């Protein structure tokens, strides 16, 4: 039955003849593992096309949709795996292509009449690199778009046509919607078509001229058929490589950084295969830059392209030696530059901190995206996220004076610490420390401020003065209850024991401890002598305090050095806009809940302030 169908099809398609010709291919010598590189490149290309087509089913290019659609793909196991396969196969492809080229040089498959095999094979290397280059930024990540910006700048520095070309590539002045659409157009249409044409020519040439016979082995006695003796080796290597790719894709997946936002500090770096060029650029500046970005790569390509001519120029033996040494020198140079670049980054603390920060932001953005991305684009996710913007705003505006350091000294150091450490501000622990007669005058609280010898410090210290033993511990207990009551102003307690203690504390604040002598607390006390304790540490209290600490409700005339960050309604005249103020306050109060186990921002969040 199957046989009859096969015959019926064969009359129409003639596939048996075609298949037969393929099977009848013979090897120049015995089958070899060395010969598998070509087939590996081919099948990796097929995998790239297959996974690429699948990804196209969910991907949407444009600045507002690229990153969200990729994070959407990442949210399912299969999508994440396929994207991983696509990502790692691309890298495997570049390696396989290099191995293939080395093999071809070693076997001398460029001599007449096989020059076209060499030329098409060699040209596929820049083409595949272009393919990768147009693919990487499609995720719309910070890293990807920074890479495009640099590439466009390199293109733009070409004399004459440069600016025009860069404009065409970006689809305008700078990176935007059209940049991604154009890269997509190149990545899924133009480059694949060019690659298909090159590959067709390459394979037809290989079939026409056969694999080159080894020089010392002109005619093998009995030709060994390609199928299955070589095929099984090809498939084994492919299966091994794909196995490794699948493992990497399953275990790690493809990276997806935070969405591009020019506002977030970032250290751009190219992919590993362009690290050598990146390093090369360090050594050529200004008008010489073209040497690194254009002349050297083109010259290397041209030298390799002329390999078939060398036999005639230098004689076969010398040419062979020259070619091998050129190839080795090229690889060594490339490897050395790449190594240098990575080595430099390894010892660059700032870069390492930035990478760590990038990972934190990437994770945060993905978590936020799972709840849906606003229609205006993914940059809004982190831009409106208190957890991301809080530390940045704190570093920029507060950390000149206020440290934000946990008990291990991790967090944001102040450049000129002269105000209380705000780590966990408003939490029970923080207020307990403030109301601790031994700690209130320490550097952690008022020690370095104008209030170090002020009324608050002396009032708290007097509460414990002269007390000993049971009396002292009773007083300490009262102060802890007061702290509980003040913490409850920002976060009303849920459980009854805390609520009971807070109620007891409230009575003490207005009564025995005498706080309301200076402070206002709900209906007790007056404003104008000390900060209002009503709603202490809550969002609205914080916003009002940061807006204007000189206000009567807070320090009034006795305010030490703290600037009023938003005294008026006009954002342009304020140090902090209403939006920034809300983000900062939201972040600070989110730290009250469990100050010990919150993620700590790394110093990279404030590169200009904490360079240690």
């Amino acid at each position: 039955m199957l046989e009859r169908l096969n015959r019926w099809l064969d009359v129409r398609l003639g596939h048996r003849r075609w298949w037969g010709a393929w099977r009848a291919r013979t090897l120049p010598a015995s089958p070899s593992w060395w010969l598998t590189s070509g087939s590996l490149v081919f099948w990796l290309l097929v995998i790239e096309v297959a996974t690429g087509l699948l990804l196209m089913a969910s991907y949407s290019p444009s600045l507002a949709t690229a990153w969200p659609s990729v994070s959407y793909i990442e949210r399912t196991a299969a999508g994440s795996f396929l994207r991983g396969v696509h990502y790692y196969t691309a890298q495997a492809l570049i390696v396989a292509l290099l191995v293939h080229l080395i093999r071809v040089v070693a076997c001398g498959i460029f001599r007449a009449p096989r020059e076209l095999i060499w030329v098409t094979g060699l040209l596929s290397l820049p083409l595949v690199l272009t393919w990768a280059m147009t693919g990487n930024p499609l995720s719309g990540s910070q890293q990807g778009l920074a890479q495009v910006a640099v590439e466009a700048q390199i293109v733009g520095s070409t004399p004459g046509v440069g600016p025009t070309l860069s404009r065409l590539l970006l689809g305008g002045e700078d990176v935007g919607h059209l940049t991604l659409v154009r890269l997509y157009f190149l990545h899924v249409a133009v480059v694949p078509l060019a690659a298909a044409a090159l590959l067709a020519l390459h394979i037809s040439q290989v079939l026409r001229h056969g694999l080159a016979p080894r020089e010392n082995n002109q005619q093998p006695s009995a030709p060994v058929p390609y199928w299955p003796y070589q095929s099984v080796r090809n498939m084994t290597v492919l299966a091994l490589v794909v196995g490794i790719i699948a493992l990497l894709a399953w275990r790690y997946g493809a990276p997806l950084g935070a969405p591009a936002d020019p506002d977030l500090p970032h250290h751009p770096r190219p992919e590993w295969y362009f690290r050598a060029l990146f390093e090369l650029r360090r050594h050529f500046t200004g008008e010489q830059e073209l040497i690194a970005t254009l002349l050297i790569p083109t010259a290397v390509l041209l030298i390799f392209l002329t390999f078939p001519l060398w036999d005639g120029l230098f004689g076969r033996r010398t040419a062979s030696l020259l070619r091998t040494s050129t190839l080795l020198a090229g690889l060594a140079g490339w490897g050395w530059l790449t190594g240098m670049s990575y080595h430099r980054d390894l010892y660059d603390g700032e870069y390492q901190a930035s990478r760590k920060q990038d990972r934190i932001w990437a994770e945060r953005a993905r978590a936020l995206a799972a709840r849906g991305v606003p229609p205006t684009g993914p940059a809004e996710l982190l831009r409106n996220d208190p957890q991301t913007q809080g530390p940045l705003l704190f570093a920029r505006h507060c950390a000149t004076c206020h440290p934000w350091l946990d008990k291990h000294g991790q967090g944001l150091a102040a450049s000129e610490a002269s105000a209380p450490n705000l780590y966990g501000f408003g939490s029970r622990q923080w207020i307990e420390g403030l109301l601790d007669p031994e700690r209130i005058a320490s550097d952690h609280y008022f020690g370095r401020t104008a209030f170090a010898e002020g009324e608050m410090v002396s009032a708290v210290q007097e509460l414990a003065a002269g007390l000993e033993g049971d009396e002292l511990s009773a007083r300490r207990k009262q102060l802890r209850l007061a702290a509980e009551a003040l913490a409850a102003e920002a976060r009303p307690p849920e459980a009854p024991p805390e609520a009971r203690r807070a109620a007891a504390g409230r009575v003490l604040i207005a009564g025995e401890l005498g706080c309301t002598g200076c402070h206002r607390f709900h209906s007790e006390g007056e404003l104008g002598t000390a900060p209002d304790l009503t709603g202490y540490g809550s969002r609205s209290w914080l916003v009002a305090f940061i807006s204007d600490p000189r206000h009567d409700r807070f320090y009034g005339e006795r305010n030490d050095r703290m600037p009023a960050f938003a005294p008026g309604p006009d954002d342009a005249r304020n140090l902090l806009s209403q939006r920034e103020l809300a983000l900062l306050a939201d972040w600070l109060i989110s730290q009250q809940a469990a100050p010990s186990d919150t993620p700590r921002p790394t110093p990279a969040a404030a590169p200009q302030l904490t360079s240690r």
Partner: protein
Amino acid sequence: MQQMQRRGFLQWLTGLLGAAVCSVVGLPGVKYLLESLGRGRRTARVVQRVARLADLTPGRPLLVAVTARKQDAWTEYAQHVVGRVWLVKSGGDGGVQAFTAVCPHLGCTIQAGADGKTFVCPCHRAAFDAQGRRLPSSATGQENHAPRDMDALACRVVQDEQTGEAWVEVTLEQFVPGLRHKVARG
């Protein structure tokens, strides 16, 4: 003979390895394509206050929009129009009826008729009376393609806790068009 056996084994092995490689992309590929089936389901039911009772005039149907948070693949629309509802206040008892504006024929949005009291679908001129009942062909002189009356929605009048105003609260649902009977879409 041994040569043939070895050859057969190698062919078989090549095919097996090839199939393994194909499955690495093929199986997750199928899973990936099918995954969209389970995602992004329609918002099943939305209960929402759509109009003040005072804004309704007897005999004048009012078209109002029901909005809800909508997730379209990766994008979140905080306020998205998920449906439109015709509100009809009857003259006598002042009761309010609500109909989804989705035509039971093919799902176009039903408009008010020329008299402002009845309803007509702009796609195939399906016509309904002021109570959302299908008008017979004889009444309009045209064949009525609607398979059933307009789909009524659960609706009640509620009092606002703060202002004390009376509001119309509607439960928006989707129904399968083209059927004789009203079947909720799930």
